[in-house]
């Protein structure tokens, strides 16, 4: 059971934003996409989700092509970076909605609610919440699912260090339960904490993909942080260009 993205190419207007990117996502794996601003992280995830139509490449699940919304809906759950729950709707209604369409056992859904600290916000409307609280609701909707692949765009950006620890644990638990996670993360330190493999994007192209140790080896920087490895690989790529 794996999601295969083969040579995905995407354009926005005349600009080629993602070019020939391939990746494989296995059950229990957390693949983190990192890159500079404008590297194509969000566009890549949008392409996998079908929000932006790829101009080239192929996405398959267990060898079968994934083309339509229905096919994507069977395997993918998502949290976009820039989405906000409608301000008019109560947290209770949003949680019930996620539970209904997520298809997970009630105790799993309640567990996720509890871990994200959403139980005490039930009576509030989404418009009355802080940005971090709204992000937690979006995260709940994405994680409260029985679908095998969870795609999260910048899920760690708005949380304080304590919340971040809890959320990283929750993501690890979802992966341990068999879900495949595809994340884009801006902060290298956060990416290093959660990733089982890392995809480095630069100007829409995949610079490298592998575990942190494999990337360190490739950069010739044993024991270095992801940030150092990223900068080194970026420097080499730019020098070669």
């Amino acid at each position, binding site marked *: 059971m794996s999601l295969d993205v083969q040579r995905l190419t995407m354009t926005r207007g005349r600009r080629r934003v993602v070019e020939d990117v391939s990746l494989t996502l296995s059950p229990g794996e957390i693949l983190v996409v990192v890159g500079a601003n404008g590297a194509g992280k969000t566009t890549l995830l949008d392409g996998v*989700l*079908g*929000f932006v139509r790829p101009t080239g490449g192929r996405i398959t699940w267990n060898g079968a092509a994934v083309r339509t*919304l*229905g096919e*994507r*809906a*069977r395997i*993918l*759950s*998502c*949290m*976009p970076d*820039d*989405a*906000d*729950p*409608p*301000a*008019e*709707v*109560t947290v209770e*209604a*949003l949680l*019930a*909605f*996620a539970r*209904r*369409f*997520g*298809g997970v056992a009630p105790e799993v859904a309640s567990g996720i609610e509890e871990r994200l600290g959403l139980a005490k916000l039930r009576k509030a409307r989404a418009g009355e919440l802080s940005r971090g609280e709204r992000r937690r609701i979006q995260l709940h*909707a994405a994680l409260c699912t029985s*679908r095998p692949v969870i795609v999260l765009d910048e899920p760690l950006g708005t949380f304080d260090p304590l919340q971040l620890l809890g959320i990283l644990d929750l993501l690890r638990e979802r992966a341990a339960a068999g879900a495949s996670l595809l994340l884009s993360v801006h902060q290298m330190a956060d990416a290093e904490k959660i990733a089982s493999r890392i995809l480095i994007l630069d100007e829409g192209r995949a610079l490298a993909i592998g575990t942190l140790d494999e990337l360190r080896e490739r950069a010739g920087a044993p024991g270095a942080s992801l940030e150092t490895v990223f900068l080194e690989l970026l420097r080499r790529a730019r020098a070669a260009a």
Partner: protein
Amino acid sequence: MLRRELAIVMRARITWLAAALSALLVGHGFVLAIDLYSAGSRSVLSNTLAAREFDPLAGIVRPLLGGLYLSVSLLAPLVAARAIAIEKERRTFRPLLLQTARRWASSLRKRSRRWSA
């Protein structure tokens, strides 16, 4: 789904404005229908055959239902457009489709199987 979209719709000013306009339209139609029916009923009192055919269902209820039908035709697109616009503005529309498509697809499949059986 309904609860979520209803919350968006019910807290929009345009919904209440459209509902008020519809109420005026239907109310005015009702008053006119009553007026016409009472004026007509006075004139048919002398004619037994006409009195027998003079039905409140045709004279009052049908025009009223027609008014309601017209109001719903005007109100429903406004309400639906508002809900979709909000979901698009908040960038939750496509995730919403992705979240709900599986359930709708399976329910459609079940229904089509039932119909074809």
